[in-house]
């Protein structure tokens, strides 16, 4: 029980007549990266919203960091952070102002110190004093992630963190997520990219028609499939590999 950051039992949610979640059960181990997979409209964002206290569940028992989300929402909010599907940053403020604002709202002692550290860590030094409206998509997402790390929450929710990013920015986000998990933060990730889950996640759960239809480690999930066949296939480089190779060459010059 203590080793689980998130414990969900029989989670129900419907919008009017539409049953989005029909008894969802899963557990997320502390310090792990958990990936929730599902196609668009499967209810991934609904689960994130319930776990982050933005939506109320209709039924079920859910605890986040040991706090019941219905009776102790403030304690839950204290211990989590959310990076939503759309970059939740203030476009009119500068990057630095965004971070200071969040640090102040988290009532930290030294908002400027915390902000400086995060700006350095995320390589945003040059852009820190520019308005966010001028940032590229990748920088947006980096700032968004940095804002979620203010105050070192124990558990971070990343709702489709790489949707709409170019391959380079995507790799950078992956690196940050891995570093987070290495430092002991629990990461709850939703994604529709299977390779993303494959790359990052310790535990994977597949959400389909309002239920978790499969869950486990990657190895466990692979065992569900028919045994591997050995076939001879010529390995062509993917376009992504070509793109990254060319970009890398350019930067090396």
């Amino acid at each position, binding site marked *: 029980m203590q080793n689980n950051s998130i414990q969900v039992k029989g989670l129900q949610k419907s919008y009017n007549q539409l049953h989005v979640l029909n008894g969802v059960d899963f557990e997320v181990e502390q310090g792990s990266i958990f990936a929730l997979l599902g196609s668009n409209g499967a209810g991934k964002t609904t689960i994130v919203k319930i776990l982050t206290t933005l939506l109320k569940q209709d039924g079920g028992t859910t605890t986040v960091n040991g706090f019941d989300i219905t009776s102790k929402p403030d304690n839950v909010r204290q211990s989590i952070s959310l990076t939503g599907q759309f970059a939740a940053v203030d476009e009119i*403020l500068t990057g630095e102002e965004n971070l200071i*604002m969040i640090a102040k709202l988290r009532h930290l002692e030294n908002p400027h110190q915390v902000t400086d550290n995060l700006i350095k860590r995320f390589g945003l030094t040059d852009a820190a004093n520019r308005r966010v409206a001028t940032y590229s998509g990748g920088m947006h997402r980096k700032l968004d992630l940095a804002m979620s790390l203010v105050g070192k929450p124990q558990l971070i929710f990343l709702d489709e963190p790489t949707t709409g990013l170019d391959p380079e920015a995507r790799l950078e986000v992956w690196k940050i997520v891995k570093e987070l998990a290495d430092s002991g933060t629990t990461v709850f990730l939703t994604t529709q990219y299977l390779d993303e889950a494959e790359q990052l996640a310790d535990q994977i759960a597949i959400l389909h028609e309002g239920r978790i239809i499969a869950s486990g480690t990657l190895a466990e999930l692979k065992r569900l499939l028919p045994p591997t066949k050995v076939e001879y296939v010529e390995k062509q480089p993917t376009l992504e590999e070509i793109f990254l190779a060319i970009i890398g060459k350019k930067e090396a010059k």
Partner: protein
Amino acid sequence: MEATKKHFFSDMSVMLGRSMRHIFRSMDTIITVTIMPIGFMLLFVYVFGGAIQTGTDNYVNYLLPGILLIAIASGISYTSYRLFIDVQGGIFERFHSMPIARSTVLWGHVLSSLVSNAISVVVIIVVALMMGFRSSAGVLPWLAVASILMLFTLALSWVAVIAGLSAKSVDGAGAFAYPIVFLPFISSAFVPTESMPPIVRAFAENQPVTSIVEAIRALLSGQPVGNDIWIALAWCIGITIVAYIFAMRAYKKRV
């Protein structure tokens, strides 16, 4: 709950600071808000004014209170616009997933609406002074005028919150202000109500703008204010309470 209540004022100052930065970084919104009422003022004073019989020799003095209300009514559409952008952009959700006093998310917008509308009111009064507006009012009547205008702004800002929270599009978020901008035209703001047909006159004399306009006009010209100021205050406070209740309802729907 206790932990978040303790931080109400510090959270509030962060939210207000944020909204104020938004306003000062888009001074064009304040300019847009002042240009239309100033345009009306020029139009009514220099084009229609000669033909309008108000019983006063200085039409700018007669006109100014209504112009100020028009400015505030168009100013609040930016409040709902900014709130709408917050809700759409996701920052609203970020705030709500944080351990803060949630009501400050709305109060920040409402308070900054008071500040930005106060700025545009001052700008318009300066232009009116250049056009010949004069007032014999002392400090107390001016304070009373400022309070009425602030209450009026507060009331309309909560109406703006309803629109900002429940709008489906950016245009929708701003459009609710048009009828409010139009209200002063069917009041005693530009012409005395005596010349209006009975039904229009009945509406004009019993809608909030007339009593607010009459109260401000009396205060600025040093006339006795009579009942108008109490009717004006009752309207402002009544609208604030009703709008606040509906705003909270729209807010609960959102979260």
